[in-house]
C-alpha cells in the first residue's frame, strides 16, 4: 500500500504548518506543505493527495474575522476542486484556524436557506487564551476520532466559541452525530463552566464533522500533543509512548491502509 499523501495548506499567517506536517509523518504519512497561491495557480494539485489539512495560525492575520479571508478564497476560487476531493472519499481536517476556515467556507457544513448553520465567534472571555482542556469524543461517525474516547489537548485561540444559527440547527447537527468532540469537566455529568469549556461554546462543542464523518474541524491542537513531554504534567506521570493527539493523525493515515 502506498504511503498516504497529506497536503498541509498554508496561507500568509499560517503558523502551525511545520509541526502539523511532522505529526502526519510521525503517524506514517507523507506530508507536503503547500502555499494557497500554488493551489490558486493550479487547482488540480489536491488530486494527488489523500488528506487535506488546514492547520492553525492566523491566516491573513485573522483580519476582518478569524479564517474569513482564506475561507472566502476557498469558497469562491477552490470550491469545485475541494467538493470533488470530498466526493472522492478523501479526508479533510481543519485545526483551530483551519476549523474556522472550514466552517466559514461551507466545506464542513452545507449552507442552509439562511446561510451557514453555525460559526465560531469570539470567546466569552473576550481574549486569546492558551490552556489545556479535557475532551470527550463520540467516535461513531468521525473517521479521525476512531477508537478515541477522551483525550487532553491544548486550545489556543480567541475566536473558538461554537454557535449555531438557531436551536433547530443545533438539534439537527446533534441528531446527525456531527457534534463529535466536546469539552469535558474533571467529573462527567455536571454542566461545564469556564475554563473547562474555555470559550463558551454551545453544547460544549470543540469539534464538528460533516455528515460523512470524513471532514472534521476542531479547535484544540492535536499536533501539540504527540510527544509525552508536550503534556503540562508529564513530570508528574509515568513515562508514556506518545501523546493523545497522535491517534487523530494515525486514524487519518490508517483510513487509507
Amino acid at each position: 500500500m502506498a504511503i498516504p499523501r497529506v497536503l498541509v495548506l498554508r496561507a500568509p499567517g499560517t503558523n502551525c504548518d511545520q509541526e502539523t506536517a511532522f505529526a502526519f509523518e510521525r503517524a506514517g504519512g507523507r506530508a507536503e506543505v503547500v502555499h494557497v497561491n500554488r493551489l490558486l495557480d493550479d487547482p488540480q494539485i489536491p488530486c494527488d493527495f489523500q488528506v487535506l489539512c488546514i492547520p492553525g495560525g492566523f491566516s491573513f492575520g485573522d483580519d476582518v474575522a478569524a479564517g474569513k479571508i482564506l475561507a472566502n478564497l476557498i469558497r469562491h476560487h477552490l470550491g469545485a476542486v475541494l467538493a470533488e476531493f470530498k466526493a472522492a472519499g478523501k479526508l479533510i481536517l481543519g485545526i483551530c484556524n483551519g476549523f474556522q476556515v472550514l466552517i466559514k467556507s461551507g466545506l464542513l457544513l452545507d449552507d442552509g436557506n439562511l446561510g451557514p448553520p453555525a460559526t465560531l465567534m469570539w470567546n466569552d472571555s473576550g481574549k486569546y487564551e492558551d490552556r489545556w482542556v479535557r475532551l470527550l469524543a463520540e467516535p461513531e461517525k468521525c473517521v479521525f476520532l476512531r477508537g478515541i474516547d477522551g483525550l487532553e489537548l491544548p486550545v489556543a485561540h480567541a475566536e473558538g466559541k461554537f454557535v449555531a444559527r438557531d436551536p433547530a440547527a443545533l438539534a439537527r447537527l446533534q441528531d446527525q452525530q456531527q457534534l463529535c468532540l466536546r469539552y469535558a469537566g474533571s467529573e462527567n455529568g455536571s454542566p461545564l463552566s469556564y475554563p473547562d469549556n474555555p470559550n463558551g461554546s454551545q453544547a460544549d462543542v470543540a469539534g464538528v464533522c460533516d455528515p460523512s464523518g470524513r471532514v472534521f474541524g476542531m479547535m484544540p491542537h492535536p499536533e501539540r500533543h504527540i510527544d509525552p513531554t508536550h503534556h503540562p504534567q508529564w513530570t508528574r506521570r509515568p513515562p508514556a509512548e506518545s501523546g493523545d493527539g497522535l491517534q487523530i493523525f494515525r486514524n487519518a493515515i490508517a483510513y487509507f491502509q
Partner: protein
Amino acid sequence: MTLWEIDIHPAQGLPDSAGQRVAADAADLGLGRNLAIRAAHGYLLQGDLDRAQVEWLASQLFSDSVVERTVVAPVGDAVLSQTPDPAAGSPSLIHVLRKPGVMDPVAQSAAQAIADFNVTVDAVRTLRKYWITGLDPATVPQFGSKILANDSIEQLVMGPLELTELHVGSPHQFQLVTVPIRELQDDALLQLSREGQLYLTLVEMQTIRQFYRDLGRDPTDIELETLAQTWSEHCSHKTLAGRIAYRDDRGEQHFENMLKETIFAATQEIRRRLGKDDWCVSVFKDNAGVVRFDDDYHVVFKVETHNHPSALEPYGGANTGIGGVIRDPMGTGMGAKPVCNTDVFCFAPPDTPADQLPPGVLHPRRVMKGVVSGVRDYGNRMGIPTVNGAIYFDPRYLGNPLVYCGNVGLLPADKAEKQPRAGDWIVAIGGRTGRDGIHGATFSSAELTSESETLSGGAVQIGNAITEKMVLDVLIQARDRGLYHAVTDCGAGGFSSAVGEMGEEIGAEVWLERAPLKYEGLTYTEIWISEAQERMVLSVPPEHWEEFAELCRSEDVEATIIGRFESTGCLELKYDGHTVGQLSMEFLHDGRPPVVRSAVFEPPPVQLLTGIDGAPRPEPQDDDAASILRAILGSLNVASKEWVIRQYDHEVQGGSVIKPLVGVANDGPSDAAVLRPVISSRRGLVVACGMNPHYGDLDPYHMAASAIDEAVRNAVAVGADPQRIALLDNFCWGYTDRPETLGSLVRAALACHDVAVALGTPFVSGKDSLNNEFSYEDEQGKRQTISIPPSLLISALGQVEDVRQCVTMDLKQPGNLIYLVGTTRDELGGSHFALVGGLTGGQVPVLDPRMAAKTYAAIHAAIRNGWVRACHDLSEGGLAVALAEMAFAGGCGASIGLDAAPHQVEATAAPSLETVLMFAESNSRLLCEVSPDDRQAFEASLDGVPHARIGQVTDDGRLTIRTAEDPQSRLILQADVYELKEAWQKPLRW
C-alpha cells in the same frame, strides 16, 4: 465616487461584549459607573461602488450572519448614527479612527480580500464607534481619550461622521535642502540639534561643522540625519561603549570602552579558558549573539527594549517592540528562524489612583493592558511561542514603563557568516515605507517629558505581524536556496542604519525614489530614515535576483532593488537622478568625537533594617508569619501572572517541554521554560531571566550579581547544564550624564564581569536604554523628575542534553523529602519582607560566585541522574514563598523544621533567626524534593555544598513550619495551601 460605511453590530439578541468591556474598563479606572455603552466596528470604503456591491461585500466578507448584523449607507446618512439600543434615549456618539498614515492591518487585508472578488476600491479604513448613555456630554471628549482612543495614533470624532473622502497622500515635489551649518554659532548648533530632533551633543555638532568646513560645503538635510541616526545613543551606544572615568570606594578606573573592558572582556576570558571547547560562535557583533546548539544548529538570542514608544502608545510600542526584536535573529548570520519569545515588563502599580497621575502619563493599568495585548497580538500571529517573562512593579516606572522583548532563533551551523559584496543589489523586502516611525532612534535616546506625545508622535507605530511572517517565510526559503550574500533588519534608523551598516566596509549607492511607499508625499530624507516596520534589507547578487524576486512574488511579498553596493567607500544617496547625499563611510562610522564621561559611585553605608520612620521594627508575633507570607505572595512582583501568560501562545511550533505554568492544576510558577527548537530532536533550550531593581537602591554591584545568579539558578532549576548558559544584559537606567547615575551603571557592569567569569556564563549580546526619566510640571508649576530605579535585566539561554531529564517545581509525592541547598544569611535588605513591611535598610544579598558555581554543578548532576523530583529556586520572598509555591503547585502539603537549614546569621541579628531563615533572599539557594530511595545518592552528589533535609512532603494540604521537624517544637507558621494559592492568584486575576 461615494464614501461608503459598513457597520457591524452583534446580531439581535446577542450581548454586546465590546460595549460591556469598555464599560468595565471605565469602572476600573474610576471614570464612570453604571454607564450604558453600545459598540460597533466598521469599514469605510472609497470607490466607484453601488449599494448592491457594498451590501454584497458586507454580507460575504465583512460580517458573519450567524452572529452579526450590518448597517450599510453612505457616510453621513442618519441611519449610521442611530443607536442600536432603542431604550437608550439620546446617547453621545463617538467615532474612533486611526490617524491618516497609521498602520491599519485590517484595512490592508480587507482591501486585498475585496480585490480577490474582482471589485476595485481606492481606499479602505476601519473605525470603531460607541453610543454612551449616562455620561455628562461635556466630559465625553475626555472619556474618549482616556478610555476609547490614544491621541498619538487615533482621532476621535464626536457625533455623526462627516467625511467626504479618505486622505491617501499627495505627490511629492522634489526639493534639495541644505543646512547652512558652517556659519552657525554654538548656541545655534544646539538649537538645530534640538529642534531638528537630532539629539546630538554640542561637541558632536561642532565636529560635524568642522567636517563640512573642511569639505567646503554645507550638508544636505539627509546627510545630517544620517549622522544623527548613526551617532545616536540607540545605534552607537556611545555612552557605555565610550570613555569613562570611574571612581568608587576601591579607587579610580579609566575605561577606553567601558562595555568592552567589563562585559565583553569576561566573555573573552571564558572563551580563552574553554579553548577548543569554546561554544560561543559570534558575540557582540551581529544583530544577536550566536552560540553552538548541536552539530547542525546554532542558537541566537537578543533582547531589546521599546520603552519610550510604549509609554506613549502601549499597544503599538510593545507590538513593534516584539516585532522589532524578532527581526534581530532574522537578520543574524544569514537569517535565523525565531523559535521563542521572552518578555519582561516594569510598570507602576496598577492600583495607582487615576487622579494622582502627572500630566501626560497614561494610567499604569491601561499601560499594562496595552503592552500585554501588543505583545500577544504580534507574537501569537508570528507563530512564535512566548515562553518566559516577568513583571516588576515600582511607582518610579509611572512615566517611564519598561518593555523588554526578546527572541531566540535557530540558525543552521553553516549559515552563521554573511558578507555583502560589491556589485550586489541592495534589496528591500516586506512592508512599505511611510512617515511612521520618523526619528525613533534619536527619540529613544531622549528624555521623556509631558509634551513628548505632541513632539514625537511620529515615532509611535503599530505593527503588522502578518507582513513580517510573510517576510520570514520567504527569507528562510531564500536562505536555504543560497539566493543572497547578507541580510539585516531595518530597525532604528531604517534604511539609513541598515544600508549604512551593511555597506560599512564597501560603499553603497541608493536610489531612494525606488522604495515602495505606503502613500505619496514622502521626502527623500523621510524615505531614508523612516522606521516603518516589517522591512529587511538583503544583499542579492545579480545572478540570483530573478529567482529571488520570483520567490517573493509567489508569496505576495514585495521585493525592490533600491541600490547597489559599490566599492567606493562612500555612501551616495540619490533621488530621481539627483545626488542628495554623499558621505564617507569612514566619517559616518568613525568620525564621532570621543567624550570622556565621569562616573562616581559611593556605596551607601549599610543601615539596620528599620521602619521608614526609623523606629526599630517589633519582632513578628506568633501568627504574623502566615500573614506576612500571604502579604508577600499577594505582592505584585510575586503574585501569579497567569492573566498575562495565558494570553500568549506558549506552545506553537510543537516543541514545548516545560511551560511557564506547571503543576497539578497547570498554574504553578515555573522557574524557566524549556522547549525543543528542533522538533525531531530531544535536545532542549532553556530560557530564564533575573532582575531585582529593589537591590539596586542599596548597591548596584550586588543587584547585578544577584540578577545573574537568579537567571542562572532559574535555568539550572529546570535542568539546564550550567556549563552551557549564555547571558544577555539589558541596562535600563536614568540620566547617565549625571556622574552618580552613570557610576551606578558602571558598578553593575563590573559585577557582570566578575560573576560571569566565576560562573563561566559568557555574555553574548546586550543592549542599553539610557535617560529613562520623566519630567513634568506639578500643580505649583515646579519641574518634577521621576527617574527609574537602576533596572538590569539578565536573560539566560541554557541547554539540556535530553529534555526528559527536566524537572518542574511542583511537589510530587507525599512522603518525599525536602532539601534546602545553599546558605541563608541575614540579607533582608531590598527583600519583599522589607517591601510589604514598609522597612528600609538592611544588608542586600551578596553573592559567593565560587560556591554558586559549585552548587549549580552539583544540582545539575543530581537532576541529570534523576534524583530530583522537584526543584525550585529561592528568590523574592525567600524560603517561605518558595515552599508555598511548590506546595500549592503540587496540591500537596509540606512540613518543615527550620533548625537544620544551613545558615550564617549572627546571634544578634535584628529580626529573629526564624524570620531571616524564612524570608531572607540570600543567593544561590534552591529547594529539592527527593524520594527517600534516592536520599543517599542525592546527598552524596551535593558533597561540599551546604545542604540539609528540612522536612517532607505531606498529604494534609497545609504548609507547616516549626523551629524543628519534631512535632513538639514551636510552631511558627501554618496555613492551608489553597488559601496561600488564593492570596497569590487574586491580585492580578483580571
